[in-house]
């Protein structure tokens, strides 16, 4: 993805800006030593269905990751599916 260096820069920026916050939680010894997957949202919470809702179709959504995934919703996602948080991708419209 072309935005990767920028995204990494943003993450570093956030780390530096919010480093103190990490310290607050590190008292718990909870900071993971190995990176783990970030929590995604369940299908039921977004009312996911494996069929389109009119023009709303996962393969036209900003968050769709071909062939069968979503950046924010967990599990296998049908390109023909739909859900409540559909956002039209300008690139895919």
């Amino acid at each position, binding site marked *: 993805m072309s*935005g990767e260096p*920028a*995204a990494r*820069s*943003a*993450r570093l*920026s*956030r*780390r530096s*800006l*919010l480093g103190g*916050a*990490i310290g*607050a*939680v590190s008292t*718990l010894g*909870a*900071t*993971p030593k190995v*990176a*783990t*997957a*970030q*929590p*995604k*949202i*369940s299908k*039921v*919470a*977004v*009312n996911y269905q494996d069929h389109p809702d009119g023009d709303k179709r996962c393969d036209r959504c*900003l*968050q769709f990751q071909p062939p069968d995934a979503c*950046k*924010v919703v967990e599990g296998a996602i049908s390109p023909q599916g739909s859900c*409540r*948080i559909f*956002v039209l991708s300008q690139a895919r419209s």
Partner: protein
Amino acid sequence: MTRRPLAAQRVARSGYASRLTVIMLGAMVFAALVAIGVPSRRAVALPLYARQTGQPCATCHTAFLELTPFGRRFKLGGYTLDGGDWSGPPFAVMLQPTFTNTAADQQEAPAPHFATNNNLAMQQVSLFTGGRITDNLGAFIQGTYDGVGRRFSWDNTDIRFAKPLNVDGHTLLWGVTANNNPTVQDVWNTIPAWSFPYISSALAPMPTASTFIEQVYAQQVVGLSSYGFLDDLFYLEFGGYRPLSNNTQLALGVSPTGQSPISGIAPYWRLAVEPNFGNHSWEAGTFGLASKVVPMGMSGAGTDSFTDIGIDTQYQYLGDPHTVTARLAWIHENHNTSASQTLGLADNSNNNLRSLNASVSYIYDSTWSLTAGRVSVGGTPDATLYGTFTGSPNSAGYIFELAYLPFSRGGPEFWPWLNFRIGLQYTHWNKFDGATTNIDGMGRNASGNNTFFAYIWTMF
């Protein structure tokens, strides 16, 4: 304070009303022109999260700041979910210009630099930061300039670690939250930190009595709790709060004067179930806080103890374009006020309070929100403890609010992260501090505190 002649008050009120009308109409016209005439893009609730996720305001909020099922899970997941392409710094700004009118002038100005009625105020200016720090660590951090008290302080803060696990075929999202306000970490809009009304006047009279879990400790404590969300259905949280030292509070902009600080650690608990089916989301739960406090910081007589136990339920219909939310919370508080009684700060050695907050909202197309609510507090009379003329803590009223949120589904091209909640709110008091008439011994009636409140809540 010298009261102005009635005719002058009428003229002044008329002038304020005209000014308010111009301001409110101007804001609505501006928002409407921008919404209609300018190509729209994604917009925001807390804009830094919208920029992070790439989602519009309406994904996380029915009408901000009420959360949708998605918004609740974003928060439980530690504010870490991304999906957007924003690469700038993680900041957002909030402005709350307001106008407050009470049916009768107040006896004294509610704050220095303000009048006894018809006050315009920049109630809050807040700077937010936070969002995703790592895959599993994120934050909500708010600093606020209080335009009424005219000081800067830290505000709601919630720093989380969250991690999804798979346990014997069950999904478990577990996490830890460090925060500074009991219930600020909660994700349902029923319990105190995030319940309706989401904004209210800082310059209008408010009932004297409230339970301890209702914002009494906000920003005066630090708390740590651990939570689990099992199978996207069952939520359990347990933790505790301890007070910040006076020096720490002063350094953070909080005045410790008049506080009754927690002694030791106050345990906090939360249990809820949230089934979702189709466009329906329903929650039922319980929550509570048990605290021992040093009355007014006077340690000679030991501690009082307060146990707050609440039950709550919330139903949401999340259709397109129609959304309906119903919320209900009831809190029972038992006081053991023997230390206060010994110190002459209370008449009784035991008291209790009951608090009710119920409301229903209809939201059209994430843009128009109409809400009606009922609030009440009641309990045993204690004239010394509450300091009310009647000795009673009882108050009850209705709140009605109309709000316009033009950019929940898309902001203007020139700044797509701009969002407004422009609202008109009316509070009608049936009873105030124990009475309907003569609530203060000087002839003021509860209806004199009826409040008209207008605001232009701005986020970017």
